[in-house]
């Protein structure tokens, strides 16, 4: 599609009696060089494209690293053969398909889920501090994980189920409190209910750890956050919730843009502000609970990624920020996981703290530059 020239002279429904709008006629007469106006840009700006490109390159590079590097080096050609089904059966194919591919996919979906969840919540609650933590999801998921790790250590396969179930339960309780009674649906109510629910579940988590001090060792890794080489079992548990969360996120980007101009403007444009807010919170809760079920507490990503995207790209448009946050989240998670596995091999560093160490300097640098 070629960009057509500006058509501002086309006029309104009945341009005949054009009354003199002082500002517009002044601009038309004394407009800057460029005559009748350069066509306004319609696509993303260079800066926005660069941010997407950088994230995409980092993602691909980290994915290649994630598939090839490790205790056994697998050449890229062997990886491609295995993934496309052309490789002969053997240990290399097994390593690629049963160990590294699922871990790479986990890093991808966890990072994308947290980036998306943060972008949705910050938009829906109009609050830069919003992250999946404020919905109670993180507190609930931690409690669910501790229940399994500390009370039922034999049933380790239930870990993602417990984290997911309690993460969603906590969010459901927060919604139930926030969406009923007088003053229902307000942002303040939702956030306060989330903080209270987080505190309640955290108390439960701490109590469990105090009751079983000898088993706490196994819980530390989960709390630190990180991926494990556990094949496809985690993804098998969470994929339906992930799918619902991502599909909802896709339908929410334009409604969230309307909401950014205020509830009344959103309503003027035919949206229902409360419905948008609630749907966004539900989607974010699902995505964050899934991420916690797979990777433990790495929720810092959800707060941090959307800010980085907005500051780096210079736009807050949700049609851009939500998908780009998903991409950037996936890239950071995958870079973090690959580094965590390889930097100090054979020791595997916990991904959560490593990503915070990677992310905080970038975040603070952008924060100082942003006006």
């Amino acid at each position, binding site marked *: *599609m070629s960009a*057509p020239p*500006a*058509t*501002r002279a*086309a*006029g*309104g*429904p*009945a*341009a005949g*009696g*054009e*009354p*003199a*709008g*002082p*500002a*517009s006629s002044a*601009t038309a007469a004394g407009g800057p060089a460029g005559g009748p*106006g350069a066509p*306004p840009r*319609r696509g993303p700006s260079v800066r926005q494209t660069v941010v997407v490109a950088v994230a995409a390159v980092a993602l691909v590079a980290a994915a290649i690293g994630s598939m090839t590097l490790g205790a056994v080096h697998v050449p890229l050609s062997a990886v491609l053969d295995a993934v496309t089904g052309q490789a002969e059966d053997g240990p290399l194919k097994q390593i690629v398909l049963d160990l590294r591919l699922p871990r790479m996919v986990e890093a991808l979906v966890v990072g994308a889920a947290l980036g998306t969840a943060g972008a949705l919540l910050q938009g829906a609650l*109009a609050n830069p501090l919003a992250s999946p933590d404020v919905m109670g999801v993180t507190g609930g998921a931690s409690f669910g994980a501790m229940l399994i790790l500390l009370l039922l250590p034999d049933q380790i396969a239930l870990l993602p189920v417990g984290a997911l179930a309690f993460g969603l339960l906590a969010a459901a309780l927060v919604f139930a409190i926030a969406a009923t009674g*007088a003053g229902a649906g307000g942002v303040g109510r939702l956030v306060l209910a989330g903080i209270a629910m987080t505190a309640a579940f955290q108390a439960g988590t701490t109590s469990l750890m105090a009751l079983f001090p000898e088993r706490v060792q196994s819980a530390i890794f989960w709390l630190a956050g990180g991926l494990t080489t556990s094949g496809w079992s985690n993804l098998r548990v969470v994929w339906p919730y992930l799918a619902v969360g991502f599909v909802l996120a*896709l*339908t*929410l980007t*334009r*409604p969230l*843009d*309307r909401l*950014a*101009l*205020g509830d*009344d*403007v959103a*309503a*003027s*444009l*035919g*949206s*229902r502000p409360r*419905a*948008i807010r609630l*749907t*966004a919170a539900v989607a974010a809760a699902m995505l964050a609970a899934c991420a916690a079920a797979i990777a433990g507490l790495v929720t810092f990503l959800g707060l941090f990624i959307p800010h980085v995207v*907005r500051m780096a790209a*210079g*736009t*807050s*448009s949700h049609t851009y920020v939500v998908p780009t946050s998903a991409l950037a989240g996936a890239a950071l998670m995958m870079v973090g996981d690959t580094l965590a596995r390889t930097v100090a091999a054979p020791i595997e560093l916990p991904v959560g703290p490593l990503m915070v160490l990677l992310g905080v300097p970038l975040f603070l640098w952008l924060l100082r530059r942003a006006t």
Partner: protein
Amino acid sequence: MALPLVGRAAPALDADAPLLDAREVAVEIGGRPILHAADLRVGTGELVAIVGPNGAGKSTFARAVAGLQRTAGGSVRWSGVDVAQLSGRQLAQLRAFVPQRSRVPEGVSVRDAVRIGRSPHVKPLGRLTRADHDAVERAIARAGVERFAERKLTTLSGGELQRVQIAVGLAQEAPLLLADEPTSHLDLGATATLAKLLRGLTADGLAVVLVVHDLSLAAAVADRVVVIARGRSVASGPPAEVLVRERLADVWQVDAALETRPDGHTALHVAWLGRTA
């Protein structure tokens, strides 16, 4: 809408019915009656001002007819169709509502904001077509905001922001624009600019409903004024016939008189401290 209802047949609009016909509208908020019975009829190309004292229910009435506030009684019809039967999208193509003060988000340019105003015409998950982009540029030009179309909303003055709000509404290309006290935070010059803009829109064929405090402004721009007092519409008609001394005394409890000169000057002569001589 986040989750659009599918399969709902759109009710047919009646081209002969008035654009907006609201009768005996009542509103309760939190169980408390705010509006008892208010009427408003608006036709194409008309500018109607809603005036009344603070707390009389002007803004509530405007929100109710615009479909932003649930009604407890009466009827609101847009082109003959009850407001409850219209989907948000359909309603957005019949009227634009410009709030008194809206959120000013960071990182959003004027043109981005006006594009958001176009969204009722864009299919869910669809993109703006060439016609949509043209409509956005028309709205930007009409509201006189081209000069700062690339600037972020956070850098604009109050008067500039209010014109951007109008541009967002104009991008909806609805036949009626409802503005809730658009001039209440503006200085004299910005108010005059906005008044000219709104009056100019009626020459384009739009209907405009203006909730406004300033009676001399209402008298200058409006074809008709509707007076709301204690939750009821108590008078409707041309400004000079409605805003008479007795009514100003009765509704606002002031000793005041409206003067309208044929050359377009209007003034409200108020005995601010009561009659002193």
